[in-house]
């Protein structure tokens, strides 16, 4: 294989993985914008999305499209239950408490998934009936990658419409800008917090469902996805959705190129090193323009 087609091959892989990181980062952003909380259980939503979809389609033989929406619905509900059960009852929680609570929720979900699905790795059939790779010279593109990019773009458009043109979406943005002011003009802040958890669980579930046909899924995926998604969110500037998508592709490409040309054994460390590097050098990220102090809260 020539150098160029090898490069192209890695780019294809990187773009697919990067889209997923971008979506996990979007999930982080939604909750962060509405509440200022970093939900460390974000990766578990991705894992659950994939797992529930697998059970529905291969276990219960539910059609693909129906299964997709039911899985997203179930995980959305789980996100809402977590907010009601673990975040809502707290009165004036400290940041430390919130961190530990979301960590606890994350290992609870992980343990629950292990209880239900065991430790096996599962797979999901590809979305398109023809699984034949599309070839570009010597490099080949998995058709699922096109599904991933398409569904990601569709989710982005739905989100953009929701945040810009619906009353609820605008209320959530008002919450993000200033909670007190939002509540003064009649926004139900507590409800918006609940909604943000549900919405970010839904995004996570979508990401989990579309990545499973290429990356497989097991109960233990969540933590790594959460850290990489967070690395993406920070690189893109926490809270910035466009930043998240761009940073997702950057980290995805770095990872696949690094694995291909440098060393595949340290593939997972690349995103983590990026995270540390960005946190230590420029916590505002590439799209962050606000002063450092705001991002060190």
């Amino acid at each position: 294989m020539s150098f160029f087609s090898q490069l192209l091959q890695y780019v294809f892989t990187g773009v697919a993985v990067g889209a997923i990181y971008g979506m996990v980062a979007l999930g982080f952003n939604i909750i962060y914008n509405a509440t200022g909380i970093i939900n460390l259980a974000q990766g578990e939503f991705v894992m659950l999305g994939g797992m529930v979809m697998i059970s529905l389609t291969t276990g219960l033989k539910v059609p693909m499209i129906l299964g997709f929406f039911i899985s997203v619905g179930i995980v959305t509900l789980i996100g809402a239950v977590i907010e009601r059960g673990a975040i809502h009852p707290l009165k004036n929680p400290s940041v430390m408490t919130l961190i530990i609570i979301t960590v606890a929720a994350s290992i609870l979900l992980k343990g629950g998934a292990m209880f239900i699905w065991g430790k096996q790795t599962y797979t999901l059939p590809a979305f398109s009936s023809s699984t034949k790779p599309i070839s570009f010279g010597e490099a080949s593109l998995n058709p699922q990658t096109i599904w991933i990019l398409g569904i990601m773009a569709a989710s982005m458009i739905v989100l953009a419409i929701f945040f810009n043109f619906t009353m609820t979406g605008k209320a959530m943005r008002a919450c993000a800008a200033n909670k007190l002011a939002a509540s003064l003009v009649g926004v139900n802040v507590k409800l918006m917090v609940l909604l943000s958890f549900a919405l970010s669980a839904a995004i996570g579930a979508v990401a989990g469902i579309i990545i499973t046909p290429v990356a497989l899924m097991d109960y233990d995926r969540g933590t790594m996805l959460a850290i990489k998604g967070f690395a993406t969110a920070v690189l893109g500037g926490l809270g910035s959705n466009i930043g998240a998508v761009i940073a997702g592709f950057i980290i995805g490409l770095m990872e696949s190129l690094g694995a291909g040309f440098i060393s595949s054994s340290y593939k997972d460390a690349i995103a983590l090193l990026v995270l540390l590097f960005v946190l230590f050098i420029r916590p505002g990220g590439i799209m962050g323009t606000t002063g450092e102090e705001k991002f060190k809260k």
Partner: protein
Amino acid sequence: MGKKNLYALAALTGFIVVLPLVIGNPYYLGIFIFWGIYSLITIGLSLLIGYTGQISLGHAAFFGIGAYTSGILSTRFGLSPWIGMIAAIFLAAGLAFVIGAPALKLKGHYLAMATLAFGEIIYIVFNQWISLTGGPSGFGGIPAFSIGNFSLESDFSYYYFVWGIVLFVFLASINLIHSRVGRALRSIHGSEVAARCMGVNTSGYKLKIFVFSGALGGLAGSLYVHFVTFVSPGTFSVMFSIVLLTMVAVGGMTNIWGAITGTAILTILPEYLRAFQDYDILIYGAVLLGIMIFLPEGLVLGVFNIMRKKIILREVEEEKLKLKKSR
């Protein structure tokens, strides 16, 4: 150090000395040794989290660095475990300094994520640097400590050796808390800006405590590896960092005694939950969530406070009844 602490420490020492004489079962003795080893890490974490208010989700890494350093030096290089132990402490402390200096400038969630990422990176290195660490399967044949010709191979002698170190570290930490340094640490927890305004060198203190807790993790790793004589990366995953955090939370984060009690509860209790086997992760999650929501001051203090509240309420009711009767 107040009188209360002195009496409590004397009681703890007495308890520790008598414990193996009462419970001679070698299996339990092993568990008590683990209790001591883990306590070393949780004492450091309690100082960092509870007193200084800085979180770490990566302390299993320091434990692992200590274990691998001591293990590798005493097998590959044939050095004495004592040299391994000293190297373990210094390497863990050095690493804590290198990572802590930039990381502790971050706050809250960012610090949590930075330490989590650090822990994952170290875990990946343990797994992938196969020529040095033996990769995912690890390596064995690590010798035990010995003093002169006297080997500390028996659980009985090792128990006293480990707990001697733990009690010494614990005493030093209690003294630290009740000194000028301890007050400075708590002022950072209260408000970093206010502490800085009062002339407390906040970043210096935060870093020193982080390095101290990292060094304790390294020491614990060395004690662990020469006890189990085998090392593999699975022990030092991020999950163990969360277990350590759970130990501190269960014991009560705001009190250093919570480190010892929380570690005791979560080291000894799982032995009775053998039926759950792999699902211990589910239990840790539930325990951590329950404690943070319902008993944020920890199990011991939390239950104590609830009992006290109940007793006071009952007394009030009785007083009311008496008043009614006297009318």
